[in-house]
């Protein structure tokens, strides 16, 4: 039995990917935990950045929304939405940003749906919609995506394409008029996925301790290359300690 939760594993796996001095765009929940963890693990000089305009907040408690007052304390700057998104669209700062996103559905090219399942006009399930996700996915240098590894999430075709990944692959992202960029890593509660350098199709890059590849494949509705998959190292004691003591001592995200 693991002594960490899958949410904690996901946060750590993403945190390990963040590079020093990167500007980390993060949303709520697990992505915020990952960004906070990164500052203690791999990227002490990374900068946490919220779409609401807060830059490099001193997060003494975990915020429950990107507009939580906790993001406004001891920042380098408290701006607004217009500033925040312009920083990501800016030709010099945008490429330095890594965006962390989540979604309800993902397709083989890393495009995301966070709007609706079923008919758009009167959907079976309505989600929150883009928020800043489409903007981030359009603008920044690279993205990391959090997904739950359950049925209906990894689909051949999205019900609604909210946030662009590689669109149809093969340079279609650039042809559509978007900057280079796109998803680099998908982190789920069972595995991690990356994208083929040429085709930009998703492949299985790693699986968590105790997880079988077949178990992962069951939830993926499109053909998936599994030949490059390797085991992902478990959360270390030190990483767990950072998460629980420094990032979320109140245990709001587990």
């Amino acid at each position, binding site marked *: 039995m693991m002594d960490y939760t899958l949410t904690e594993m996901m946060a750590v796996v993403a945190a390990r990917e963040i590079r020093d001095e990167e500007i980390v765009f993060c949303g709520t929940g697990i992505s915020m935990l990952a960004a906070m963890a990164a500052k203690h693990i791999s990227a002490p000089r990374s900068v946490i950045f919220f779409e609401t305009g807060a830059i490099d907040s001193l997060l003494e408690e975990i915020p429950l*929304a990107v507009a939580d*007052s906790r993001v*406004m304390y001891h920042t380098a700057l408290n701006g607004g939405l217009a500033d925040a998104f312009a920083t990501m669209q800016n030709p010099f700062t945008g490429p330095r940003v890594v965006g962390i996103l989540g979604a309800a559905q993902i397709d083989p090219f890393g495009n995301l749906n966070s*709007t609706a399942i079923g008919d758009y006009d009167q959907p079976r399930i309505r989600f929150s919609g*883009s928020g800043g996700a489409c903007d981030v996915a359009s603008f920044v240098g690279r993205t990391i995506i959090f997904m739950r590894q359950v049925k209906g999430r990894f689909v051949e075709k999205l019900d609604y394409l909210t946030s662009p990944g590689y669109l149809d692959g093969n340079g279609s992202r650039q042809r559509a008029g978007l900057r280079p960029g796109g998803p680099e890593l998908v982190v789920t509660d069972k595995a991690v996925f990356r994208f083929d350098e040429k085709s930009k199709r998703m492949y299985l890059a790693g699986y968590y301790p105790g997880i079988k590849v077949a178990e992962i494949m069951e939830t993926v509705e499109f053909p998936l290359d599994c030949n490059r998959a390797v085991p992902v190292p478990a959360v270390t004691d030190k990483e767990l300690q950072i998460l629980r003591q420094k990032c979320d001592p109140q245990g709001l995200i587990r």
Partner: protein
Amino acid sequence: MSMAEAISRFVKPGCHLSIGGFTLNRNPMAAVYEIIRQRIDNLHLYAHSNGQGVDELIGAGCVRAIEIAYGGNGRFAPTCIRFRKAIETGQIHFEDYSNYQMTLRFMAGAMGVPFLPTTSGLGTDILQKWGFSPEFREAETRLPREKLLVMDNPFRRQDEDPPKVVLLPAVNPDVTIIHVQKAGREGTVSINGLTFADVEQAKAARHLIVSCEELVEEDEMRLEPGENQLPFFLVDAVVHQFYGAYPTACYGCYDYDPQFLKMYQRLAKDDALYASYLGEYVYGVDNHQQLCDLVGREQLQRIRAVNPQGYAAGLDRR
């Protein structure tokens, strides 16, 4: 001016409205509840991620159509509950944008230009799928005929120049309502912490209602002009409203109330329970002060912000 008077004077049935704040912070909730109490309906709402206020206006049946980027409220409702219900049951007209796109629309309105450009959304369904029907747009003569448009970049010269941009049409609401920490009697506004898109929303509107925690002499606002975001001549009504963003947060003054928001989350899921919520907490009180009384001094004290953090450090938020 009292909130009741400000609302009845400027917010008319069918008017185009936008409210300030973001998800669970600085929503002008006193104004939202007053709109519900006055049963002002058929509102056309412009929102980016205005969370709690939007959900309550929709839930109370005040909203006919909404243009929105994000109907969520942080951990308390990743998708706002009455918003979700209204869309799934076809109760309201809706049009989806991204947060930046909506911000640009307010900015365009504030700047007095018909549109602003961005590359956000190229290749997505935000461009492809339009929520408002052509008939709806045709009938609503104040709306642009197009949700948005894509155009080639006419200045393109280098390979790295964007080949095309999305043009977002300006929004100019009849009324914008914001809640802030401090205002002068004439209306000069000082926002502490993040401004979200309040400044753009305020400038885009024909009329601006400002509610504030602290109302001071105009002259006092001039001592530190660097702390001010909006000049007095933009403001139509200033309402002194203690805990005016409650149950959402107001940085430096109080936190969001996790207890109230969790209760809301539970009650909003069921139509009958939601009716009882409205009956008790909105229709059942005459004004925001009475809501605060109902919640109780003890709970309001619990969410009081501490210095220097500006939020209620250590608050139980589970």
